[in-house]
């Protein structure tokens, strides 16, 4: 094992929230490695610390203790702007609720991270069209979110997450707002992205969705209670 082969290295990650004088420990020491190209599902009941862990992995929050190395870079103690920079360059987010900008067409939504990265208009447009093609939405580039189906909106969101060619794609219940058929389509898209070498970490509570991953990490009360290949999940 060396850093070069790992997208994510978590060592003794703890997180304690302070509420006045009250300290609420949420993560008690998480150790996990995710190699480049892995497809991992994170599962756990609500209150298990799963969301907190995802926030730390997503560089939206800092761990109270322990070390987090993302794509070879220790991000445990960065400040807000440095974390924003990491999110911009190394992470792609897919949310349950899509979180697209209203009244803004698909291509512009997809290109938004490049805007914050300071990429010029023409280059943004070109790269947005390239990732829209990857998710099969070239013909919807000029459509606004309210003109797209839920599945299409989630594809736009995935395209947005991919546009900066992130080291890790983080998906939080990406099929939570979709019907079964559309969910299946989206899961197929994730399969395809995995096959093309993307590193994917997905939070879900749906065993059927988790089974599509290659590895399942289960969290309970702030600790990893199981870390197993998805093939072990019973149908």
């Amino acid at each position: 094992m060396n850093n070069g082969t790992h997208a994510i290295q978590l060592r003794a990650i703890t997180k304690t929230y302070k509420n006045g004088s009250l300290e609420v420990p949420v993560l008690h020491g998480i150790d996990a490695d995710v190699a480049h190209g892995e497809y991992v599902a994170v599962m756990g009941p609500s209150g298990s610390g799963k969301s907190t862990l995802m926030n730390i992995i997503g560089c939206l929050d800092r761990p109270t203790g322990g070390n987090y190395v993302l794509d070879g870079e220790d991000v445990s103690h960065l400040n807000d702007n440095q974390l924003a920079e990491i999110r911009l360059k190394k992470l792609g987010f897919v949310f349950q609720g899509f979180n697209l900008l209203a009244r803004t067409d698909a291509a512009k939504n997809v290109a938004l991270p490049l805007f914050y990265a300071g990429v010029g208009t023409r280059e943004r447009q070109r790269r947005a069209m390239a990732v829209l093609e990857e998710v099969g939405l070239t013909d919807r580039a000029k459509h606004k979110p309210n003109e797209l189906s839920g599945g299409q909106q989630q594809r736009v969101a995935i395209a947005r997450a991919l546009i900066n060619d992130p080291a890790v794609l983080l998906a939080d219940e990406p099929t939570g707002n979709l019907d079964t058929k559309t969910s299946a389509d989206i899961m197929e898209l994730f399969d395809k992205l995995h096959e093309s070498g993307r590193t994917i970490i997905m939070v879900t509570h749906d065993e059927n969705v988790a089974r599509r991953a290659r590895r399942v990490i289960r969290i309970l009360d702030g600790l990893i209670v199981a870390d197993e290949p998805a093939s072990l999940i019973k149908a």
Partner: protein
Amino acid sequence: MMYFSEAMRVLLANPVRTFLTVIGLIIGVTAVVAIQTLGHSMAGAISETLDVMADNSFMVFLGGVQPDYTKSAIHLTDLTDIQATVPNVASATPMGGTNDLARHGHNVGRFSLTSDTNPPFNNAPLAFGRRINDDDVSNGTDVMVISWQAYKRLFPKGGDPTGQSIYFGSHRYVLIGVLEKPRQGLLNSQFGGDLTIPYTTFLREYNRDGRFGMARFIVTDPSTMKATEAAVIRRIHELRHVGSNVQYQTFDKATLTNGINGIFTGVTLVVGLIGAVSLLVAGIGVMNIMLVSINERTREIGTRKAIGARRGQILLQFFIESAVLSSIGCYIGMGIGLLIGGFVNTFFIVKLTGYTATLPYMQAFVTTTIFAAIVTLAFGTYPAFRAAGLNPIEALRYE
């Protein structure tokens, strides 16, 4: 620029709200620009009107109710004395006037007649002939310069009337000049009387006792005119042997101009106050709507932060949104203000004064831009910082 188009998109997505937010700014800036425009036109009109008055002369007149006019009135001998003893006084001439019927042939009119000298009190250009010259003054010749109104009345057929006779009362004068038609309007009404004759002639015909309520002084050096005015007043008091209960007042172009400028300074202050109050009220409206907008878009801000927007970038976005919002209101207000100013200028000021003012576009633009900048800075900064300071995790969770 993407921040700008983003701001436009957001503001135009809710046009009614945007309009209601900026209406206070529109009203405030409209008022300020309109009054600024009018002030500019009025000041221009008045200053141009005053141009017919000479810079190097002032008048002294007997003010208030006089217990003993014979004693306090300025006497011809006082003027001779002052011209000889008070430095800087180049000439001192009495000013008198009277009214009577003037007649040329069958054409008759009642006109005021005033005494004048060379250089004349009224610098207005001539339509015909010449002005009263030094020879007329020293010889007391029976010559007359008349106003355009008098010319129209006495010479309805037009043509050059110089050399013709005019009777004022029973006395006959030779017409030597006609003043050009003055601009229409109240402010440009004739300075002095309709008919002017040399003051020496006036003394002989209408004022044998040599006492006047008014006199005109021409100075050599206009820069020390105020001191000269004071010296003249002192000398008149001495010569008349009157106490400080008798007041002689002075009147000159600078005093008049200062008085008018004082009025405009007052108007400017009032406008500034209106502006400040409207800025405050409108600015609070802008801040309120920005805070509402940020609240509504909490998830959007969370998303932007999650995908890598830095604090400064969010700050800039909302700051520009405030700036665009303020600018929309302010520049619409500027447009309406200039329209109102232009309208009043065309239909009232030009009619009243004959002075065609150019609208102060540049001045209005500068005022408006300062307004927009102040509103943005004072009321857009806090919402922008609030948006930028949102925690992305909480913002994403916000329903």
